[in-house]
Structure formats: C-alpha cells, structure tokens
C-alpha cells in the first residue's frame, strides 16, 4: 500500500467521504481562508507597489497575522479535502501546480513580511525595487495557484489557461518594470529640483 493509498483510508478520509457535512464544510472553509490569505496579502503587495500611499507601511505590518490565519484555515481544510483523493491528485497537473504555487506563495509572503519589518524611513518615498518585484511575483503566483486550484475540477484545460495566465503575467511584469522606471526617474528629478532650489 502506498502512502497516498494509506492517506485515503485514514479516519479523516473516511469521515470526509461518508458524512453529509464533511465535504461542504471543508470546501466552504477553503473559500473563506482563500479570501483572507490571498485578499490581505495581495493588498499588502499593492501597497508595496505604491497603491494606498497615504497608509504608512509600518501601520500595515500587523495585518500579516490575519493572512496567516487564513493559511492555517486552508491548510486544515485543504488536508481534509486532499485525503479524499490523495491517489488521484498525485497524477493531477492542476493539483500539483496549485499546491506548488501555494508553498511558493506562502514563502514569498513570509519574505515580504520580513522585508517590511526591516523597512526604513526611505520606504516612505520609494520601496526598493527588489521588494516591489517580490510583490509582483507574489500576485502572479497566487493567481496561478487560484487558476490551477479551480481547474482541478476541470481536467484537461490547465495548459491552455496557464498559457494565458503566463502571457498576461509576462506583460504585467514588463509593464511594471517600464512604469516603475518612469516613476522613479520622475521622482529623482523632482527631488533633485527641490534640492537645487533650496
């Protein structure tokens, strides 16, 4: 018996399969946890990219903890859902891509949290490029995970969707770099102008 076969025979898996409420409860918790984790972390990413500028970065640090609560909810509900089909999921491209994306995305949010904890006064005017890049990549990775996660229920469409998401992501990344360079250039010019004036 393989590990995944064993998983499918655990008490939890049996309960998920045979109880009336098990599956609907877990699938609902999984949607709520997704909204919390991805919702909050994407908004924090957008702040790093210069949206909501009137909110000081320091004041937003405390929100990471709620995002992690969302991830805990989804780890618990996700494991419960996974036990039902652990054997099939090993062969499911959407599932494997989604789960990889979740690990990478969670790691990126942890990196972002650490970076924000070390933010210095200079961030008030301009967030370092490497932090902005982490923010862009985090949004892309969450998007890929969400797309792949939904497509677990639609086998055979994952690569078409990934091609579209990939193309949009590359465009977004290039667009970000171009816009960022422009904005940073303008900012430096204004700074220089105000310095020469005084």
């Amino acid at each position, binding site marked *: 018996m393989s590990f995944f076969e064993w998983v499918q025979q655990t008490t939890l898996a049996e309960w998920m399969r045979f109880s009336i409420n098990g599956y609907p409860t877990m699938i609902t918790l999984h*949607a709520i946890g997704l*909204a919390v984790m991805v919702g909050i972390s994407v908004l924090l990413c957008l702040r790093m990219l210069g949206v909501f500028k*009137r909110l000081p970065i320091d004041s937003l640090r405390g929100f990471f903890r709620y995002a992690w609560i969302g991830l805990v909810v989804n780890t618990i509900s996700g494991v419960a859902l996974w036990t039902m089909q652990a054997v099939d999921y090993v062969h499911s491209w959407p599932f494997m891509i989604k789960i990889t994306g979740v690990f990478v995305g969670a790691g990126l949010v942890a990196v972002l949290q650490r970076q924000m904890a070390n933010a210095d006064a200079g961030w008030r005017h301009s967030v370092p490029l490497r932090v902005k890049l982490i923010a862009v990549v985090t949004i892309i990775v969450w998007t890929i995970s*969400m797309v792949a996660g939904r497509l677990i229920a639609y086998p055979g*469409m994952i690569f078409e969707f990934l091609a579209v998401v990939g193309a949009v992501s590359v465009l977004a990344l290039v667009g970000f770099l171009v816009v960022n360079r422009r904005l940073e250039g303008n900012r430096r010019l204004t700074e220089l102008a105000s310095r020469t004036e005084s």
Partner: protein
Amino acid sequence: MNVVWNWMESTWLNSFVLDHSWVWPTLEILHFSGMCLLFGSILIMDLRLLGFQRLVTSDAVHQFVPVAILGFAINLATGLLFFFGNPFRYAINISFQIKIVLVLLAGINALIYNYKIEPIMNAAGPHGDYPHLAKAVGFASIVLWTGVIAFGRLIPYLGTG
C-alpha cells in the same frame, strides 16, 4: 418571475456561457479573484473599525473602499453571467437566495458605513478608538460577507439545484 428566467435562457448570453467549455471555469476564477479583493479590503477596514491595528489612520483606511467596489463589480458581472447561464437552477436554490439576501444586507451596512460611520471615524482622530455603533457595523460587515462566501460556496450542496 418565470417569464424573466425564460427570457434569460433565450438570450445570447445564455448560449455564450453554456456553449464554450472555457467560459464557466473562467467566470469561476474571476469570481474568486473578485472575492479576494472585496473580502481582503473589507477585512482590513472592518478590523480597524473594531479597534484592531490602530496604527492605521482613520482617514487613510478609506483608501480600500475603491478596491472593495472593484471586487464587488467583478463579482456582480460574473455572478450575473452565471445566473444567465442557469437561471432556474439559481432562482429556486435556497443557498443562493440566502446569499443574495446577505449581499443586500451587507450593501445596506456599507451605506451606513459610508454616511454614518465615516464622519464618526474622522472625528475620532487618526489613531482613535470608535464608539459601539461603529464597531457593530464593522462586525456586521465581517459576518455578512463571510456568510455571502459560505452560502455562495454551498449552492451545489444545499437544497435544490
């Protein structure tokens, strides 16, 4: 109402949603994305309203309102397309009906936030604590929108359809 549902089924939107295999999953993905934007932003605003994260200033937290509206707009559009695709299935579904009632209540709650609570917040100062009324509105918002997600997700499992 059957006349309306029948009309919806006869529109080109209905065939567009049903005839292409990629449309339904695309709408679902967009619906989840809108949910993240909407719920993420109301959560940040409501937690502040409840008195958590007081470092966030009263005036600046309103900046998340447009994101919430954007998320809602995405979900209204994709939600309507789901409905056009399968009007009878949703119309008679108890979970869907509860969800829509909760959305309407959450909308009224948002109007109260906009007209009654925002002035109170601004008067409380940037890092101030808010009165019970404001906290009640924040709490109601979290509960209602969580309910919207839950009953939305439960549509296939509750009642008919």
